[in-house]
């Protein structure tokens, strides 16, 4: 049912703007203000406000330099929540530590959006087929949040499973990616139906994530190692792995032209092809 009042940028209700320059300041504002909305790139917040969402206060995060940081240390790569998708694709440290993740971000959305959208905004938007959360879940990354009580860690996979995992009034600081983990492939060719991500965990096992087929991305281990995958799976083996993996998925969703039935049918097909292709096609024929 449409909103009787049209969507428009002129409909964005007035709000008080806060522009903290430190995380502590932002966390304090989130704690003190009852109706505050953090805004990073602004895409999600402004689009929802154009559709009538109101907040008395908006906390612009773009002035907090530490949110834009990319650091390695303690066996993990920490990517600030304010890093843009363009930054994810181009930052030298990310390209060295997790080249697969950087490559995965290159075709996301379009150049305008990639420069504006941030890791945090993309993860927290809750849009089923957005790209960053499935990638982080495939890497078994940890989301590090700031609250007034100190930092809180939740795994990307727990957050993917349920948005309720996010504590209230928390500020996403960064995503911590365990050393050795990387995205193997992020396949957008089945959009708008779904997207598939294969990630190599720090322990060498492979996780597959399907996003857009459900309201939240679904991450499951494939029960094989990256070495086995790179060695080449026969089409038969790939099909078996994909079917076993898909069997544990909850019921999928219907969207325009893409029914749950079609998704149930096609997700394992697309996954098995993706798996078979990882061996460089050596055994594919």
């Amino acid at each position, binding site marked *: 049912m449409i909103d009787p009042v049209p969507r428009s*940028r002129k409909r964005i209700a007035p*709000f008080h703007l806060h522009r903290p320059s430190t995380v502590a300041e932002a966390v304090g504002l989130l704690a003190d203000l009852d109706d505050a909305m953090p805004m990073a790139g602004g895409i999600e917040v402004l689009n929802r406000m154009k559709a009538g969402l109101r907040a008395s206060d908006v906390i612009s995060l773009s002035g907090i330099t530490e949110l834009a940081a990319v650091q390695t240390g303690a066996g993990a790569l920490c990517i600030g929540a304010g890093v843009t998708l363009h930054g994810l694709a181009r930052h030298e440290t990310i390209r060295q530590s997790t080249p697969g993740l950087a490559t995965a971000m290159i075709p996301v959305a379009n150049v305008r959006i990639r*420069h504006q959208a941030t890791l945090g905004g993309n993860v927290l938007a809750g849009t089923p087929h957005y790209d960053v959360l499935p990638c982080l879940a495939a890497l078994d990354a940890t989301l590090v949040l700031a609250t007034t009580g100190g930092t809180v860690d939740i795994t990307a996979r727990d957050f993917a499973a349920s948005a309720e995992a996010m504590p209230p009034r928390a500020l996403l600081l960064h995503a911590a990616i365990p050393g050795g983990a990387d995205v193997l492939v992020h396949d957008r060719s089945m959009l708008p139906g779904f997207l598939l991500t294969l990630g190599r965990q720090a322990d060498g096992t492979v996780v597959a994530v399907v996003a857009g087929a459900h309201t939240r991305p679904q991450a499951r281990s494939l029960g094989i190692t990256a070495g086995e995958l790179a060695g080449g799976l026969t089409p038969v083996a790939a099909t078996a792995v994909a079917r076993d993996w898909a069997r544990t998925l909850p019921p999928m969703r219907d969207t325009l032209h893409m029914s749950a039935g079609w998704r149930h049918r096609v997700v394992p097909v697309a996954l098995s092809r993706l798996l078979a292709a990882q061996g460089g096609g050596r055994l594919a024929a």
Partner: protein
Amino acid sequence: MNDLIPIRFRLNGIDRKAAVEPNQVLADLLRDDLGQTDVRVSCDQGVCGVCSVLVDGVPVTACLTPAFRADGCEIVTAKGLASGSDALSDVQRAFVDVSAFQCGFCTPGMVISATALLAAHPAPDRATIVGWLGANVCRCTGYQMIIEAIELAAARRAETLHVRIGEPAD
């Protein structure tokens, strides 16, 4: 409730000052307050790219960017692409020569994207062009002539460069 925010920026080469509302988007600042009618809004959702402008050289969705974020930035709209006494930039000239437009409503955003593309990729292949054009919707042309205009602009730049290298100035 709104507290006006003073900002300073450069618009098409001219220093400007403005006081903006927190809930004002860049497109409305440019179009409504500063009379920049080449900044047009279509989808109002960040999908179509009609309102694209360059902010510090990067193509930006003006309908989805808070105006206060323009503070300290260099903004270029389609009308500001030409330099010197030329009425059009080389990219715009290529759009004219290929007739890479019809109704013209999306064209300012298109030439903005094309300009940014050629700055990042002076000799883009077709896949790169198609990828960048994902930022812009045109309902009239079917895109092929736009792609060719971008290729033409790139080819002319390469030719110019070649001439400069090949024929030393006297």
